[in-house]
Each structure stands twice: as structure tokens, then as C-alpha cells.
């Protein structure tokens, strides 16, 4: 692990109403690596992910204590600028949610929010990001068609391109291939592996095979607590804790 973690979570507690979802989470996310968060359903994986870009803020009855430091700054500091924080991270949801506009406008959405780029710059940016996600050749002739006309796999890649267009530092993926067919899934997985050269990538997944294929580190979460954290191969083949052993049992054959 590097000395300068990209994200440093310190004693994070999240509760919604009377339910404690996350309990005393402390973890450091290393820089420019792919980290997968695994664990059974409902144990808080998505909540943990969403706490990174403050998407939990709007949940009714939510209580968040603790610190989440990104590049050394606490994003839950009352003086922090939320839109700025969110710009640093790109989120990919379980199902793709293209905005109700054209392919071009989807990718251009973020950049347009944060500045007034000239058309030429925008065109370049759109092309770059679409190429980065392997979509360019498929859509270059219909950039102004509605994004909803794309297939699901293409839509998810579009969402990725859209997220990359705001030049984040971190990519968050919430089971982002679970709605896709195998071909699209492996395209996206390859993208993640490729993108870690530039970005830190945190993925939530319940597919252990995917976690093994893609990630450098794995976090195992159970009932709102972090049970174990370590390099992929080590955690999967030689888990230290009982619970981890139980969970990955089926995978090691």
C-alpha cells in the first residue's frame, strides 16, 4: 500500500433512521489501483461507496459521523463544496442511466456545467472520452441521436465516458456490469484495468470472479463492518478471518 492513500476513511458511521448501516469504518484506499468491495447483499457495500461522493446527503433520516479524506481533505467538512467533491469522482450505477439528451450532450453535460468550453474544445473532449471507452467508432455518425437508442452495453460505456469527461480522479462503480451481457461486461472490465493507470477505481461487486480478474485489492464487508482488506490473491486464496473464509469458500476450487 502506498503512503499517500487517495481516500482515507476514518471512523465512518452511517445510519438511516434506526438502522446502523455502516459501523466504525476505517480504511485507506490506495492510489491508482482497482479496489473491489465484496460482501453479501444488504451489508452496506453500496452505502459505503455512496458515502465517498456524498450521495447519501439527500437520503431522508440519514446520520453520518466520521471523516472521509480525499487527497487529505475531509469531504464531510461543513465548509466543503459538494459539487466540487462530486466532480472528483465518477459514478457508474448498476443500470445505465443516460440523461434525456443526445449522445454528444450526455458526454458534454459535465464539462458544460463547470465552465464555458468552446465548441472545438468540446468536440475534442467528446471524441477523446468516447474513444477511451471504445464507443467512438460505434457512434461517431450519430452523435446527436438520443442516447436512449443505444444498447444497454453501449449506454453503460456512454455513462463511463460521461463520467470521465469531468476529469475525475476516482471512479466509483456500483455493480456496474450486473445488467450487461457477457461481451459488454468484459469490455467494461478491460476498461477498468486499463483506466487504473490514470484513476483510482473502487468497485462494488458480488461476482468474485470479476473481483479477482479486475482488482488489485479487495475489501470484504459484512453487516456494516470491514472484516478484511488485502491484495486480491492473498485475500481470496488465503483469507485470514473466519467470515471471509466462509464467504469465499465457494470460489476457491
Amino acid at each position, binding site marked *: 500500500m502506498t503512503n499517500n492513500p487517495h481516500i482515507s476513511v476514518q471512523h465512518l458511521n452511517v445510519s438511516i433512521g434506526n438502522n446502523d448501516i455502516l459501523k466504525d469504518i476505517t480504511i485507506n484506499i490506495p492510489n491508482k489501483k482497482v479496489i473491489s468491495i465484496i460482501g453479501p447483499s444488504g451489508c452496506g457495500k453500496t452505502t459505503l461507496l455512496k458515502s465517498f461522493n456524498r450521495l447519501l446527503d439527500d437520503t431522508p433520516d440519514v446520520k453520518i459521523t466520521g471523516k472521509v479524506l480525499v487527497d487529505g481533505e475531509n469531504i464531510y467538512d461543513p465548509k466543503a*463544496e459538494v*459539487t*466540487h467533491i462530486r466532480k472528483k469522482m465518477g459514478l457508474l450505477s448498476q443500470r445505465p442511466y443516460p440523461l434525456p439528451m443526445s449522445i454528444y450532450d450526455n458526454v458534454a453535460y459535465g464539462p458544460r*456545467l463547470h465552465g464555458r468550453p468552446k465548441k472545438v474544445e468540446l468536440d475534442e473532449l467528446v471524441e477523446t472520452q468516447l474513444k477511451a471507452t471504445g464507443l467512438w467508432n460505434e457512434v461517431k455518425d450519430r452523435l446527436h441521436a438520443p442516447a436512449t437508442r443505444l444498447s444497454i452495453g453501449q449506454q453503460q460505456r456512454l455513462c463511463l465516458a460521461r463520467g470521465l469527461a469531468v476529469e475525475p480522479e476516482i471512479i466509483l462503480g456500483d455493480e456496474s456490469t450486473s445488467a450487461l451481457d457477457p461481451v459488454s461486461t468484459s469490455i467494461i472490465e478491460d476498461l477498468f484495468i486499463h483506466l487504473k493507470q490514470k484513476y483510482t477505481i473502487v468497485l462494488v461487486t458480488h461476482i468474485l470472479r470479476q473481483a479477482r480478474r479486475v482488482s488489485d485489492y479487495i475489501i470484504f464487508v459484512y453487516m456494516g463492518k470491514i472484516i478484511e482488506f488485502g491484495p486480491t490473491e492473498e485475500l481470496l486464496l488465503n483469507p485470514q478471518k473466519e467470515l471471509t473464509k466462509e464467504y469465499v469458500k465457494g470460489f476457491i476450487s
Partner: protein
Amino acid sequence: MTRRKLEENFFRVLMLLSIIIVAGSFFLIVGTIFIKGVPFMNWDMITKIPGGGFYIGKEGGVLNAIIGSLYVAGGATILGLLISIPVAIYINMYLGSRNVIANSLRIAFDVLFGIPSIVYGAFGFLIMVYFGIKASLLGGIVAVTLLVIPILVRTLDEVILTVPKELRDASLALGATRWEMSKVVLRQIRPGIFTAILLSFGRAIGDVASVLFTAGFSDNIPTSLHQPAATLPLAIFFQLGSPVEEVQGRAYASALILTIVVLIITVLSSWLAKRFSKNKIQ
């Protein structure tokens, strides 16, 4: 970046103002009626019928209109129920709830729902002329029934649709006829029927345009269907038009009475609706 924050806050304030205006207009209206109406309220208003010269300031009350409205609204609701319950049952139990015919019928009733009461009033008037009925309690009931049927059918339809499909689907019944299944469904939705009754009664009692041509007006309480009937909204309207301040004040008091009655009905019906759909996810 500050510009964006400013924009966000600006619109936030604008939105807050808007909702205050929109929700606050309720208080504004009811408040105005209360403030202006209470000074003129007394027991006479609700217990006496107009004496001679009521409209120029002498004795009396609006009991004629209160009773008249109750008769018209009540009669229309009963008549409306007699027609709407079979219709709602037919659409859901005999036609199957979700096919083309049923849905086109629903659209037809939605259209009827949207027709303004003055058109029903005019049409009711035509019917009266055709059948030789004079402006009377009967005329008023006929016109208001027309107004109320779409409301009833729509509400009953919505309520029946909340009954689980298996209970509705007559073909699943073990040898029961569709009629028997219908009776079961009706029993299930009893609170819903009350909601429908309240809703349509509230609408019927407050409407003017449908009774304008058809119910006539009278200072007396009607004792037969063929006598003209006063209605509260019309009474308010006529009193308001008087040059005498005392009478105008009585109009405010009458408006207060009507408002209170309708508010009670509305609150009751939404309380019932909420109790009834306890299981619905908000």
C-alpha cells in the same frame, strides 16, 4: 462557482415563495370567508327560512337553501350511486379490467369527468324542456346526477382496482357466478364507496352552474319533487348581489356555512381514503 451557488440559492428562495403562495392561498381564502362571515353569523341563519323582505334586510335565514342543497346533493348522490355502482362493477367484473373495451369506456368516463358543470346544466335544461319538467327539485337532481356520475364511476373504478386480481377474477371463482363475486367485491370496498359518496356529495353541494337553470329557487323548503328548490350556492350568489349591506353580510355568513360543510366533507373523505389505503406505499 459562486455564480452557480447563487443561482441555486436564488431559485431555492423562489421555490419556497411559490409553495407558500400556493399552499397559503387556502388559508387566505378560508380566512377571508371566516373573518367576513362570522360577524353576520347567528342561529337565525341556519334555522329559519327567509321571511318577507329577506333580500332587503329583514328577518330570516337560509334554512331553505341548506335543506334544498341537502336534498339536491343527496338525491343526486343516491341516484348517481344506483347508476355508477353497476357500471363500475360491469367494467371490472364482466368486461375484465384491462382490455381495450374497458379502457375505452374508462376514457369515455374521464371525458365526462372533464365536462364543466354548466354544460351539464344546459343539457339538463334541455332534458327538462323535452320532458316538460319545470325548474324544480327534480330538475336539479337530474342535472346534478349527470354531473356526479363520472366522479362516482371514476372513484369506484379506482377503488375496485385495488382489490387483488384473484378476488376480482370471476373465472377463478369455484363455481360462483359473476354476480356473487361482485357482491363479495362490493363488500370489500365498502370504505371506498363511502369515500366516493363523500366526494361526489361535496362536489354536488357546492356547484352552481348545474342547478342554475334546473332547480329554480324558492324561499321555501320544497315538499315535493316538483317544487323549485333553493340551493346554498345560489342563495349566496343572490344575496351578494343585493345593494343592502346587511344582506351582503348574510351572503358572507352563508358562504361560511357552505365552506364549513364542504371542508368537513373533504377532510372526512381524505381521512377515509387514507385509512382505506393503509397498505399503499406513499
